[in-house]
């Protein structure tokens, strides 16, 4: 005890040093581990993989057996057409690329101009000075890039239209276009749209949608140039352009051996005299005619506990047209007569099956919604609207449309048009 009292300061210092040493030692160990992981992350990963592996020490993938390939440079790009070499800040201009695959697989080429996928594309720059535009054309294993330059200059004040294009959030084949800003216009404005596929439309709001399901699908992507011309009360006018690109999912599926038909239809059938009718537009993307032979119809009850009923029909019993010429669009009417529909049906799924002239199987699926009756509402999965603002919009939309229900899409459109 006397020893401790006598050497208490020495012991304190020695103890502290030992404690600090211990901490450094422990931290050093940790650093070694992480340093190992940093220097040899593959080993660290193997360690983690082995935590889950039934046979320790063996990874499931042998990197040396994984096939790799070099991307080859190929002379795809023949010419890059710049609409203007000097452009005003904020003005759009078109870039179009002439490209060809020397081996003849032109449809496999994918285009990227600046940050936009597609060909041609519309670009727009702000500020002043030169802008490099990198053009990339490639396929699975080969690539070509070239750079062109555009000179951006300040221009005198003029009316400007800022147009935004985006894929519709809930309509896979549809584009949504919005004029987000106008400069140099006054009073009421009118909007004339050109959707780039031969369709046009006039609106009194800066919002429009367009369905591109009828496009030809001959390659991975399809690009469209959309134009809007805005005119105000004083006849001041300006045009803006943009491009929108769609991946050709049905064409790719066909390449993969699962041919489907792009199809657009009214998702809520019209009910008249007990029969349900729907306008159906189908596009044959194949280079040969096709015909639909069978239809499998699934009737889903409003009562989630009841199993769905499936019945088979000939396609001709439902559709007014079952044959589609090559690359053509069929405008057909689908009818489910009153006797076909079981009571308390809330959804109908119609699977159409057929084949092309050469025997390739094709199919298309239609999903219909039958608004639930008041008496069946208790059976149907639903949510009570507890947001007074949303409820107000729904009631107003019902009045505007003259219907007792409003679809999500209708509500969205009316909101975008500023009518709610």
């Amino acid at each position, binding site marked *: 005890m006397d020893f401790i009292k006598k050497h208490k300061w020495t012991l304190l210092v020695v103890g502290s040093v030992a404690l600090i040493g211990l901490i450094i030692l422990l931290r050093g160990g940790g650093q070694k581990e992480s340093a190992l992981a*940093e*220097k*040899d*992350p*593959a080993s660290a*990963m193997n360690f*983690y*993989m082995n935590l*889950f592996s039934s046979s320790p020490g063996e990874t499931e*993938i042998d*990197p040396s057996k*994984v096939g*790799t390939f070099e991307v080859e440079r190929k002379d795809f790009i023949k010419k890059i057409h710049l609409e203007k070499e000097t452009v005003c800040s904020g003005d759009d201009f078109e870039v179009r690329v002439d490209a060809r695959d020397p081996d003849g697989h032109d449809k*496999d080429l*994918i285009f990227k101009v600046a940050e936009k996928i597609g060909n041609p594309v519309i670009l727009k720059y702000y500020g002043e000075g030169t802008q490099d535009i990198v053009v990339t054309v*490639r396929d*699975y294993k080969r690539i070509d890039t070239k750079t062109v330059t555009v000179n951006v200059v300040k221009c005198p004040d003029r009316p400007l239209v800022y147009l935004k294009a985006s*894929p519709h*959030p*809930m*309509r*896979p084949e549809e584009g949504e276009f919005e004029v987000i800003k106008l400069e140099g216009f006054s009073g009421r404005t009118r909007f004339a749209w050109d959707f780039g596929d031969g369709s046009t439309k006039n609106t009194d709001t800066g919002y429009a949608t367009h369905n591109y399901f009828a496009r030809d699908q001959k390659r*991975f*992507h399809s690009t469209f140039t959309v134009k809007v011309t805005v005119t105000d009360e004083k006849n001041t006018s300006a045009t803006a352009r943009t491009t929108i690109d*769609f*991946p050709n*999912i049905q064409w*790719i*599926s066909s390449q*993969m051996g*699962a041919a*489907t038909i792009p199809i657009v239809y009214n*998702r*809520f059938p019209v009910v008249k005299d007990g029969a349900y009718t729907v306008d159906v537009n189908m596009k044959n993307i194949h280079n040969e005619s096709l015909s639909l032979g069978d239809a499998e119809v699934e009737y889903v009850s409003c009562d989630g506990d009841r199993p769905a009923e499936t019945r088979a029909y000939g396609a001709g019993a439902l559709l007014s047209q079952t044959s589609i010429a090559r690359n053509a669009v069929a405008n057909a009417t689908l009818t489910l007569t009153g006797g076909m529909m079981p009571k308390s049906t809330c*959804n109908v799924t119609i699977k159409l099956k057929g084949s092309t002239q050469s025997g390739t199987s094709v199919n298309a*699926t239609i*999903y219909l*919604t039958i*608004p*639930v009756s008041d008496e069946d*509402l208790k059976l*149907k*999965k*639903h*949510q*009570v*609207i*507890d*947001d*007074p603002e*949303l*409820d107000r919009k*729904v009631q107003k*939309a019902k009045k505007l449309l003259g219907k*007792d*229900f*409003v*679809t*999500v899409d209708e*509500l969205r459109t009316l909101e975008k048009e500023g009518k709610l």
Partner: protein
Amino acid sequence: MRKFYKLLAICIILVFASTVYGAVYVPTRINGLKGDVVLSPNGSGPLSGLFIVLHSYWSHSGMLVNNGYNIRHNTMDFPAYNKTWIGCPTTLKSDPLSNGVPGMLTEDINRTYNVTQNFTAGGGVVLKPTAALESSYRPLLNTVADKMAYMDAYYRPYGYANFFQMDNSNVRVKGRGGHCSGTNWFANYFAGKQMNLPFHSSQTVYDAAVQLYNGVRSAALEELGWCGKLFCGSGCADKMANQVVNTFGFDRATDTSSYWRTRLNGPTAYLTSVAPAPDNLLLANYRNPAGYYPGAQTADSSYYGAVEGLMFIDGYYK
């Protein structure tokens, strides 16, 4: 008497509460069933370059946890900034960068496509069993979906480099979690189905990192505004981009240096990865809209043999 008035007031409120809001919403759903995987295409955000390097057309994925009404997925918001005393952004907050929120969440179709826009309809697809295997695989996929619904975790950017850090647990733990397609993979794995994994060479990892760096840097430069540019020039954007890449590669969320540049593909170290991108969940013979065959699956390794274009079964307000 007071009690009577109170009771009367409550009754009046209850009567009005049940009648004021007349509308109901019958929810939208999509053409998938419980256990199907939903893929959403590559946008033009900061991660887009990364997915291009991985030959992935789709950039996000989730799983239907019921017959088409709700998607459960794992995602993260861009983390908040650390700021100077006058409010100029300097670096990214490290904790939400390392342990991303919201992490795993379940959203209804209207919300995820229309409001949060975590998923995009154009180019969207549903991965499901082939028609021939539908009836035999569906019960198994229901188990996978139940597992997905049970699991909860942070979104971990580091999951791209160190894939095996997801737990079969419904409790979030910092430092554990995964990324979007990885979470789908783990739901299958914990339900007894071990799907194939891709192998990304150190060169691919490095290329992806450079794209990620460029994407984040551009996005940060746009976001910083005059304030950030005045105080750091492009320095803050560089730091943020480094932070993000250091987190993806090494979970070094506070590290604003170019640490990653010499450690992904030499000379100091090499980093390979087996983390699946969304397209790696496809069968190996499927050519995606970007023109590649990035699928890592075979008929034996995956329940998902069919790719179907996304379709909506419309909801409505009544």
